[in-house]
């Protein structure tokens, strides 16, 4: 994955044009709408073949403890998925026997704080955003997942594909009974 732009900003990032920022912001909103509506096939088509989707787990540590918790891929993660792995997760829903997904979970994704930066690669853009993903299921099951995202999106023709995403949740103890959600 060294031939794609890095998630970490190497120097002070260059802000993308208004037009590009608008186009990518609309892309994020569209993605959120597809996830809300469980249009997973359409969502999967927004994912690049070389996708890396990462959601690290966070332990509570003292400030003096400099252990890198977020970017180290050899540590525990909730998601550390390639596109085939994401597709495998989605295939469970299609079996018709994922009983715990029926009745369906009701989702709302709220995406804010979008910033778009140019990268060392002309066709790839670093996109920062925050998410609020709300879930409600059955009668009273509800929870909120809130965090930051750093993405790399690649321009392909007139649209964009997600190449990398790091979604950083704020939980130590997850206050819900599972993570059946993409953010």
């Amino acid at each position: 994955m060294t031939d794609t732009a890095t998630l970490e900003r190497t120097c002070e990032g260059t802000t993308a044009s208004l037009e590009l920022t608008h186009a990518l912001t609309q892309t994020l909103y569209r993605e959120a709408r597809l996830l809300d509506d469980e249009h997973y096939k359409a969502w999967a088509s927004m994912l690049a073949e070389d996708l890396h989707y990462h959601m690290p787990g966070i332990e509570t540590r003292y400030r003096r403890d400099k252990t890198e918790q977020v970017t180290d891929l050899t540590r525990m993660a909730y998601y550390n998925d390639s596109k085939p792995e994401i597709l495998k997760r989605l295939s469970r829903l299609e079996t018709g026997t994922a009983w715990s997904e029926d009745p369906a979970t009701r989702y709302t994704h709220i995406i804010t704080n979008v910033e778009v930066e140019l990268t060392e690669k002309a066709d790839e853009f670093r996109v920062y955003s925050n998410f609020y993903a709300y879930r409600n299921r059955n009668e009273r099951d509800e929870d909120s997942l809130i965090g930051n995202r750093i993405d790399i999106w690649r321009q392909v023709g007139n649209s964009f594909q997600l190449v990398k995403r790091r979604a950083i949740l704020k939980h130590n103890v997850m206050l819900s009974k599972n993570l059946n959600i993409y953010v």
Partner: protein
Amino acid sequence: MLLGEDEMNDNIADLVDSRTGRQSRSIYASEDIYRQELERIFGRCWLFLVHTSQIPKPGDYFRTFMGEDDVIVIRQKDGSIKAFLNSCTHRGNRICRADRGNARAFTCNYHGWSFSPDGALAGVPLENEAYFGELDRTKFGLIPVTKVAEYKGLVFGCWDANSPSLDDYLGDAKFFLDVWLDAMPGGSALLGETQKMVLGTNWKLPVENVCGDGYHLGWAHAGAMAAVQSMDLTGLSVGNSGVDLDGGLSVAGMNGHMVLSALDGVSGYAFYPDPKPILEYLEANRQTVIDRLGEVRGRQVWGAQVNITIFPNLQLLPGLNWFRVYHPKGPTQIEQWTWAMAENDMPEAVKAQILENQCLTFGLAGLFDNDDGDNLTACTEQSRGWRTAQMDVYTNMALGRSGKREGFPGDIASGLVSEHNQRYFYRRWQEHMMAETWAEVPTYNINSLTDEEAEHA
């Protein structure tokens, strides 16, 4: 049977009947029963604290729970391990706020008392000026966990001075624990940070689920199995369409510890989409393990789907490689803590694959955990009604169909689909709940292998 809450405490004998496999549903929701569990089960049994790989260096510490008591486990200068209540002896504050780390001392945020890693009260601000030098610091060290002992990397603590030794407590479960802990010369480790999740279930339900419930796998996890399964798991079928009782064993009658084991030596990796690198590791080291553990364990159990339950709240699945502790948080809630398991001799690429597979199957976002969490919380919620609390539930599948099996310890029922192990779990629960002291808790290792048999097993 209608019992008031007070009566229930006197009537533990009526709440469970292991001959018929009956449990009263009140044991999943009653506050009084829960209080008694904290005392007679979590206050008495050996509880898993930490794996030695998680605190390798002097000063390394790891925070966990014993029942609802917050505990710090600390590696000492001499390499030994001690554990203390994470509570300041001055006004009771929590002295350590991190999940883990390394410390030369633990200093309380409230008034600044400072404790050394051996628990001694090492410093008191204004000791002479405000206490007039009259504070006897030796009386205010951290409260130590009464007993701490290790079995091949697994560190346990126990509050009860009269408990059997850890070795005796584990009993014949060690036969199975060794399939992970002692299969390869390099020993074992836990990988990664702690995945913690709150689940609205009584703590006994997830234990029951993993200790013996092969029945739910083919049905509850049909979707997940279809998504990730790469090999057949003998003894189970997706959709519960058939069952092969020769495919595995349900082993119980070992001091309340239970094991489910397939016997094919590979099926632990059936839920890895790409098991090839791990199968190669098994292949390359099979003979070593046979030499160390004998034919039965080396050929049939090592690498197979194995669920080990150490009473009351520890479960580990060598093969699927997840290791889990349930911390009770009241009668209807737990915190579920999960790590990935590895053998130190595994190549790095295999360890990485294990961590990754945990994301996909039994991590917080794991496809299997998605199914289980939903069912366990609903079983708990449905036990809280006025009427449902008066009901019984049954684990009465394959009653009376167990016995000895050549080469294995324990009282054994055929197959992974049985409720044999659950009955022994509730029997052990009842034995503890009825006993005033450890002396009243029976010890049994049914069909124990003699040393000689174990050698040639």
